[in-house]
């Protein structure tokens, strides 16, 4: 493969041609790339769904109930305005979805180019690089929406839900996940080996998971770390998800729009990068 070398710009002249027979439309082709992922998921859906239940159960038990009891006893609940579990759950929702989204945007993407060469096989058919990228990202959106929905379901028996508006936190979590998945997928589409992914998880995803306001307010961080949190998408995802869950969004709709804007910026910027990366990798 010569993916690393950019092809020289074309200087070719067009040739006269008869009208070509029609093929399926763009969206239908995106749907086919998506369908492939769905077919793959049929093999692993049981284990995957079980994990999606287990993870929030464990975290809400250990952090929300276990640690939360101490936090509330020490006056934390009063400081936060709500019991710790209620504070924690919506933020953890966004953070958990970020983790799944990031994973889905690393190994499976590179595997499509390097291990299985699934994308190369698709590209030999009417499906083009843009359709392949969009189909894959649409699948990631589906996966993380499932993870987010299950998370909210698990919140109910824990008593972590205050209002039915919590269902709106699911799309917010999905958008948060996409804000990570699209730029990471664009990066993964340029990789030939997987070593760099470990750095992404160790030095970006895990610190963000811990320090973006899911477990404690970002205001508790040293002052110089706070601007870093503001620049990353997870902070905004956590804040937006929590303001929906606690109903505080009505008090500050302006800041909610800022959160939404940052998330959209990351997700759409990443999407553009992703389309470019798939095109470069496949059509060389």
């Amino acid at each position, binding site marked *: 493969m*010569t993916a690393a*070398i*950019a*092809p*020289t*710009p*074309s*200087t*070719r*002249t*067009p*040739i006269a*041609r*008869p009208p*070509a*027979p*029609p*093929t*399926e439309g763009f969206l*239908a*082709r995106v749907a*086919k790339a998506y*369908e*492939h992922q769905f*077919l*793959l998921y049929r*093999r692993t859906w049981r284990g995957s769904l079980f994990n999606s239940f287990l993870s929030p159960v464990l975290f809400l038990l250990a952090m929300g109930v276990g640690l939360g009891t101490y936090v509330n006893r020490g006056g934390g609940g009063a400081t936060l305005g709500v019991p710790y579990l209620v504070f924690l759950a919506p933020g953890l929702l966004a953070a958990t979805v970020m983790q799944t989204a990031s994973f889905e945007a690393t190994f499976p993407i590179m595997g499509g180019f390097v291990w*299985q*060469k*699934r994308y*190369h*096989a*698709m*590209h*030999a*058919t*009417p*499906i*083009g690089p843009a359709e392949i990228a969009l189909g894959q990202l649409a699948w990631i959106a589906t996966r993380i929406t499932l993870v987010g929905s299950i998370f909210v379901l698990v919140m109910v028996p824990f008593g972590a839900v205050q209002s039915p508006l919590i269902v709106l936190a699911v799309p917010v979590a999905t958008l948060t996940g996409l804000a990570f998945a699209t730029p990471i997928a664009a990066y993964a589409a340029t990789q030939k080996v997987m070593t760099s992914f470990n750095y992404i998880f160790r030095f970006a995803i895990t610190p963000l998971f811990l320090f973006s306001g899911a477990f404690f307010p970002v205001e508790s961080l040293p002052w110089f770390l706070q601007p870093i949190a503001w620049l990353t998408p997870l902070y905004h995802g956590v804040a937006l998800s929590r303001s929906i869950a606690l109903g505080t969004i009505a008090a500050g709709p302006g800041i909610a729009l800022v959160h939404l804007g940052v998330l959209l910026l990351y997700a759409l910027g990443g999407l553009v990068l992703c389309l470019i990366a798939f095109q470069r990798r*496949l*059509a*060389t």
Partner: protein
Amino acid sequence: MVAGPTASGEGSATPPLICARNLTKRFGAFTAVDAIDFEVAPGEAFGFLGPNGAGKTSTMRMIGCVSPVTDGELSVLGMDPAADGPRIRARIGVVPQQDTLDTELTVEDNLVIYGRYFGMKRSEAKRRAAELLDFVQLTDRAGSQVEPLSGGMKRRLSIARSLINRPDLMLLDEPTTGLDPQARHLVWDRLYRLKQRGTTLVLTTHYMDEAEQLCDRLVVMDKARIVAEGSPRQLIERYSTREVTEMRFAPGEQDRLDHQLDDLAERVERLPDRVLLYADDGEAAVVAARERGLQPETVLVRRSTLEDVFLRLTGRSLIE
């Protein structure tokens, strides 16, 4: 040698299925394909022969509309790959050099999802998959995973997958590399059947016997250019003699031969371990050599093959 029906693109009424003029592919400063011209007629089996790195795969990828043309003209099925890539790809079947089968899906699902890419209904794709599994003798493996299949089975599955859309044109990049003789013959047999049904085959290979078996016409590529073109028989006539005599001498003796063999054949080639005499009558060359008192340890008179042509045109040194 199989002398297939020689369909020639030149002078016939049917327009060529593939037409390349000055076709060029560059990657930065590196020229992978350097201004080549060729035509492939409908129903023809056309081969690209050449050592590794000659530009065969780059040419195939341009024909397959997955690699933009840098310079020159290319039309495939009467269309322009730059403008009509998806439409062209809808009518071709590609067997890539390395299998791109999905090892996380079953044998049958690999075919069904591929049919879906071409816009087939699920039921139609399933029916077609069953037919094709039968065609490549993999029906009993339909439900199994891809990973445990042998190399030959995977190759057959790749061929079946490339046929799911009933292509007008098949692109096969080294279809039998790495297969054992039984598997190769089965693949050849299936490709020969497709050819008889009128499917146009374009293949790359560095196996001369494969080219002789399958190709009506072929081009030899070397260092990004086409260096010869013709049917296997034409190429042998043009670049070699009817027969080749291989003589092996006792160690050291070959160095003392001087030029004693040179006038016995049209061309004489000295290899480290033997001497090759290119002559239309190999036996006569042997008799003449013996009359001069030369006593080779072993003598083999054989017919010229494409391999002789290939080595003459592309040289004997390793390309790395």
